[in-house]
């Protein structure tokens, strides 16, 4: 794990829920404008499995718990997903490691993973060579 990832930004109580809430708030995501399909997240917590459905229609995003046909299924522990949703774990790394197991359309996952946040950044590195201002 990176140094940056270990140190904290203020912890969110339920990073998974706030990640999905944030998706709903976005409504439309230009990064996904060429993509359509449904991702199902199976988040395992002991015996409980929480299902989240994210439907993408040329960039329009809808989130629900309602059963629907999925193009991509992602299975992982709820605690692992909490880390991914808060940027403390990289989604692609968790796939390589076998902690996040995808099934079905992997292209959709590749497109979607761009929406996960980056690692929390320690204050110190802000003054180094990254200018935080967003261009333009």
């Amino acid at each position, binding site marked *: *794990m*990176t*140094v*940056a*990832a270990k140190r904290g930004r203020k912890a969110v109580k339920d990073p998974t829920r706030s990640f999905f809430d944030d998706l709903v708030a976005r409504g439309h995501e*230009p*990064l996904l*404008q*060429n993509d359509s399909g449904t991702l199902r997240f199976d988040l395992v917590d002991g015996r409980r499995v929480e299902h989240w459905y994210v439907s993408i229609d040329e960039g329009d995003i809808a989130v629900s718990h309602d059963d629907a046909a999925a193009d991509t299924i992602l299975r992982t522990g709820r605690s692992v997903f909490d880390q991914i949703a808060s*940027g403390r774990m*990289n989604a*692609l*790394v968790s*796939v*390589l*490691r*076998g*902690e996040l*197991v*995808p*099934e*079905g359309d*992997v*292209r959709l996952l*590749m*497109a979607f993973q*761009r*929406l*996960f*946040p*980056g*690692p929390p*950044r320690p204050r110190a*590195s802000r003054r*180094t*060579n*990254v*200018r*935080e*201002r*967003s*261009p*333009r």
Partner: protein
Amino acid sequence: MSTDLVQILEGNTFVVSDARGDIEATLTDPTGLFSFDTRFLSRWVLTVNGERLNALSTDDLHYYEARFFLVPGTGTVYIDSKLSVIRRRAVGFGFSEELTILNHDEAPVALEVRLEAGSDFADLFEVKDALKKKGSYTSRVERGDLVLGYRRDTFERGTRISASERAKVDRAGLTFKVRIPAHGSWATELHVTPTFGRLEKVVQELAKGRRAKRAGAMARGLEKWVEKAPRVECDSDVVRRTYDRSLVDLAALRFAPLTLSGQALPAAGLPWFMTMFGRDSIFTSLQALPFAPELAATTLRALGERQGTRLDDFRDEDPGRILHEMRFGEMTAFEERPHSPYYGSVDATPLYVVLLDEYERWTGDTRLVRDLEVEARAALNWIDGYADLQGNGYISYKRRNEETGLENQCWKDSWDSISYRDGTIPGFPRATCELQGYAYDAKMRGARLARLVWKDAAYADALEKQAADLKRRFNRDFWIEDGGYFAIALDADGRQVDALTSNNGHLLWSGIVDRAKAKAVVGHLMGKRLFSGWGVRTMAEGEGRYNPIGYHVGTVWPFDNSFIAWGLRRYGFKEEAARIAEGILAASGFFDGRLPEAFGGYPREMTKYPVQYPTACSPQAWSTGTPLLLLRTMLGLEPIGEHLVVDPALPVGIGHLELLDIPGRWGRIDAFGRGRVQTS
């Protein structure tokens, strides 16, 4: 020993063995079966009656297939064997090996045939750096197969070995008790298949269609690839041979990202760099555009899918940044290496926009330009935002991952490639000159796409204004007045890093050089200090760090020269471009049509042949692409509107040259030329 190694490969799966077909991995002989950057087999040794075999001959029939002719016994000069052993191996998903034994005797024989098998499941990075493993190993017999396994937490990889003939299987190999009648034969087919633990299902799904491919289908695929490419007719044997070889090597270098079913892009080099590299995949796609434009389309899509969206110091990732290198092994999985993917390159991002525009100019595929609008804009934004580390309007680089990140993020990525005349090396950040050229070109081309496809004239105007401003500042800040050329970089204090280098040629290619300065620049490129007779040296003779066999400080890089030739054409220096083409193509004749990554910078009249620089990786994608781009520059091919303009300037020695069926927005077109430029 490594010169005797036999390599076969398909995508990112490859087998490296000795001339007998055996694998006994050691530190100095990195042999094995590799897939997804993991070694799945590190021991694979054949014995007959306890004896090792002796290689009579080895054929690498195709890049994915090899045949080994063997006899029992080793070390003797005189071989009189009553047995022949043939191993025919083909790579697909893992590999298959057809093992045949012929009995030449008039009496039957009883043999014990054994294959020892084992795996260390090393990550490619561990193979390179000899690191120790952290997980645990298993080996078991399951339904007659030998199954090797490795596990570290949830990370699991395995190797399944099966045989078509009955074998006694133990945890270290397979033994066959064989009776072969007089003048008879025996055969078995072995399969070695990588497994991926919990990811098995998805990998199987993605690899479908790859695993079933047999040698026959592979051969037809290669034939089709060659048929689809333009044909070359030429008086020069060297040109014809080099072209044929480049086409086949380019086929071997194709790498199909799992997420884009069946489409391929050029990987960087064979076999250790069979993965997606931003810089290498883009440069090679540019070189190959007149021949195989579909490579560019896949490169653009695949790199776009993986474009940076976050700030991540470990990966040197920024929003809009195009990746440097992607890897799938254990060290990447546990973040001991940042390649998931790693973004530490500063040229790939502007070059991404350059490729998108050049691709559209050739193919007219505006749909791809529309699909990638968000990515292209993000790349253009990155140039003026995150890449401008010093806030001075220039791209520069300094890694944020100080442990495992790359220090040098431009194509000359060795530690001493950037220096002042006196050999001193600047600190970081560094703003190398070619990056500013790429940025200028990206803005100009981005403006064209904005106007033509994205229908955003205001954005196009803004980009052109920025480009003009950049060009003006660049010609003031990088120009070395008393030398008449451009500095290789500006250091952290804005001071010129003043060694004379081949980077000046890339500046011509990008169009950032003021017309009035071009003649002086060309004078340097073609002058004695930079031009060796074979090509332009990476660094000029007489500079503090100049060394004719120094990686980026004096050797000649074919790839570098192909872009310099393109730059010379851009500024109208046709004859100079022809001289470079002549030198590089003549050199390729000494390498059997396969240009190495680099060769020595010794003067041509001194050595008479190009002295190869030793590298681990051959063929190298952008060296393979070099003859293709040189064909383009010699014929002066330039897409203008719906037409392909042909304006040949060929060296005399080449004679008559025809390039037939050049694909593009015009359908297919032929180009002709005759050598008239005196080169010596």
